[in-house]
Every structure is written in structure tokens, then in C-alpha cells.
């Protein structure tokens, strides 16, 4: 439990970094807007292949910073991420790998040590019985629990969306 809370805390602390370090290039000449809306005012224009830093996402928009330190919004589909290696983007998996705090065998925590996700899985699963295919049916949730789960997350069916298969 303590381990999980520590991880959640670390992830919260790093969540800003996940976006702050994501670099991208624009796929075509693009206007940068002052708000995440088609009707917003243009702040500046940048040419195709310009590099930008993604600061955060809101719906289908990224808040970005240009090389000239201008901050504004553009549509998500107008950018392509630059690879992790080039941009030093940190995925959750990578952060977890780098910051995993594992309870030592002695029960005394001596600090942080890096572990791969495979190593973590191996450590956690040591005392857990494997799940057989036949047991999978046990995880099928009752209809009521699915409804409660949706309510907890404030998930509501969007009746305006009509699926092509309906």
C-alpha cells in the first residue's frame, strides 16, 4: 500500500514533466491561436517542420511553446511527436523504472534504486499464485458494479454520439 502511494505521489510530481519535455514538429504551415478553439485569434504562424514543445493537452488541442518562446494552441493532429531519444520524453513506464522504490528484503527502506519493469513484476509476483484461463471468468463484473464504476468516474453515456453500427 505504502509502495503504491509513493508511486502515485511520484507520478503526480512527474506528471507535469511528462508533457513539459515532449517535443514535436508541425506537419504543415500552422497558425498558433490564443485559445483552444477554431474561432480563437492567431498569435503567430510557424512553417512546416518547425519544432515546438507541447505543454499540455485539452481535448483535441495542444498548448505549445515555439522556439521563439511564444505560447499558444494548435490542433493535435497538426503535430508529430519527436522520438523519445531526441526529446527525452518520459513515459510513465520510464519514470516508474527510474524511480521505483522497492521494499528491501530486510523490511528497512534504504532509498531509491532503479529497476526494470520486468524486475518489478518479478518482485511483486513472487508470492502470488498464477491465474489460470478458467479463472478469468471471475473477473467479469456484475452489471451493477460497472454502473457504479462509471458513476464514480462521472462517466455518462453521450446520447448525441450515434455509432455507425447502431
Amino acid at each position: 500500500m505504502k509502495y503504491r502511494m509513493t508511486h502515485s505521489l511520484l507520478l503526480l510530481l512527474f506528471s507535469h514533466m511528462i508533457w513539459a519535455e515532449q517535443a514535436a514538429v508541425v506537419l504543415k504551415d500552422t497558425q498558433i491561436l490564443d485559445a483552444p478553439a477554431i474561432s480563437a485569434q492567431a498569435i503567430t504562424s510557424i512553417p512546416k517542420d518547425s519544432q515546438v514543445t507541447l505543454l499540455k493537452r485539452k481535448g483535441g488541442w495542444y498548448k505549445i511553446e515555439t522556439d521563439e518562446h511564444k505560447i499558444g494552441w494548435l490542433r493535435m493532429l497538426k503535430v508529430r511527436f519527436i522520438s523519445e531519444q531526441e526529446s527525452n520524453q518520459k513515459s510513465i513506464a520510464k519514470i516508474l523504472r527510474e524511480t521505483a522504490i522497492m521494499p528491501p528484503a530486510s523490511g528497512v527502506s534504504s532509498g531509491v534504486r532503479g529497476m526494470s519493469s520486468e524486475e518489478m513484476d518479478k518482485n511483486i509476483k513472487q508470492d502470488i499464485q498464477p491465474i489460470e484461463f478458467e479463472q478469468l471468468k471471475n473477473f467479469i463484473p456484475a452489471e451493477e458494479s460497472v454502473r457504479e464504476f462509471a458513476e464514480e468516474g462521472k462517466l455518462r453515456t453521450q446520447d448525441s454520439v450515434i455509432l455507425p453500427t447502431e
Partner: protein
Amino acid sequence: MSQYVSHFHYKFSLIMILTVSMFCSACGVKIQGIDLGRVFDAADKVSDLGEKTAEEEAILGENTIRALLADSSINSQINIQNYVNKVGYWLASHTSRADLAWQFIVLDDPAVNAFAAPGGYIALTTGMLYSLNNEAELAGVLAHEIAHVVLYHHMHALQTKSKTGLLLDLAILGTQVGNATTANEKGELKGPEVSGMFDKAVEDLYYKGLDRKDEYEADRLGVMLSAKAGYDPYAFVSVLQAIGSREGREEKDLQRFIRVHPSVNSRLGSLEAVLLVTDSYELSNRVLAQRYLNNVSP
């Protein structure tokens, strides 16, 4: 050449089963515990190459997922399995196939991957789960796989691969033969020819992947499904962009995923029109990052 020999062998075996079955069906003869009357009933279906029933899809699906999971380990964290099933069931409840016995399975595998099988089986790896940032991204991935099932993509692909649909019937025949004997508690396929042919078709399909147009179709329906269930549909775009940034590099944990899917740029391009549609609605666009982190930690 060996394929032709194998095909001949398989056809010969099938004819033998059918012939013996015809002679023995009326008298309830059992050979090595197998009720040949039951075999005959099942063999009747081999000649019926029409549409498959839901029951037949379920049998085919179970055989497919069992073949796919033969070398996999199911993740032992009960909270993760429960959580993924709840997200999956919430999504599936919005489809035209809400009554299917959906089963969402988390596998221990550092590779980034997710796949579906007929009958409502959806599997995804811990590598995929740990690469995502929030519940809306998970919903996007699951919705894509759910769409494959709703649209019968794997069913149709397996039917096409078997040319006449005979292979599907063989999977069913194999199970019914298995069910007829007490020696087979799991209802698994019996007979090396039958299971060998079936496993080969499954392996082939899941190695090469579905038709590209099926993938685009599942992307579009998946995004709409996420939006209908209250999730932010752009979360799936985010997943694709993150994967796209790793395309073209020799990354072992992404090789399978990239091999069986079209390029991310073309997938994003095909989503543009759908996203314009979702943009036109007032949506709740839930992301649920904290709930995801609370439930999915290694």
C-alpha cells in the same frame, strides 16, 4: 509443397472422420470414448458453410484465444484484471453486442501489444498498460479492440483464410469431439490434424495482422465508442502519437504492434473526419488520470 501434402492429409482425415461417423451415428458407437453419433452431428455442420451462430463464434473465440495464450502468462494482479474488465464492460455496454460474454485479459509481457479474438476476448499486455497515462487512453485502446469484435473482423478473416469456412467448422468439430469424451475436461481441440490446421490459421492471421482497412475501421468506431461512453476521444490520438514517435526504430517491445498495424500517420489521417464529427458534439471528455494511476501500478 508441404502445404499441399498437409492439406491433402487434412482432407483425407476429414473424409475418414465423416465416413466412419456416417456408419456409426445411428448405433451410438464409441471409439476410445468418443461418441461418434455426436461427431456425426458436428460433421453435419461442416457441410453447412453459412453464417456462424453466436455459439459457434464463442467456441471459435475460445479456441483462438487459448491458442494465442498458449505461451503467455496471465497477470496475477487481481485489482488490475478487475479494473480493466470494468473499463471494458462499460465500453462494450454501448455497442450493438453488449450481451456478448466479453473477457478482458491482462498479460504479463513487457511488449506493447493488444489484440482481440472472436466471441469478445480482448487481451492487452502490461507493456501496453504501463505505457499509457490515463483511463481515457486505456479506453481508446480497448475500444479499438472491441470494435474488431463488433465488426467480426477476425471471424471474417479466418473464414477467408479457410476459403470455404471449413476451418471454422473444424474448430467447432474438434471441440464437440472433445466434449463427447470424458478424457477432455477443457473441451480443447482433439486430434493433431484438426488442432494443427486451426493453430496454423490463427498463428498466420495474428502474425500478419488484419487487413489495413479493418484497422482503420476499428480506429474510427473505437474513437466514436470512447466518446459515446464519456471518455475523451483524443486520448487515443495521444496513444497513437506516442507510438508513432517510436516507429522506425528497432524497439523489440513495439515490433509486434507495428508489424500488424498500418503506419501511425496514415491511421491519424483516417481519423480526421471522425474527430471532426466528435468535435461537433458537446462531450464530457473524461480523462481520469488519477483513477488510472491508482489502479495500474506495477
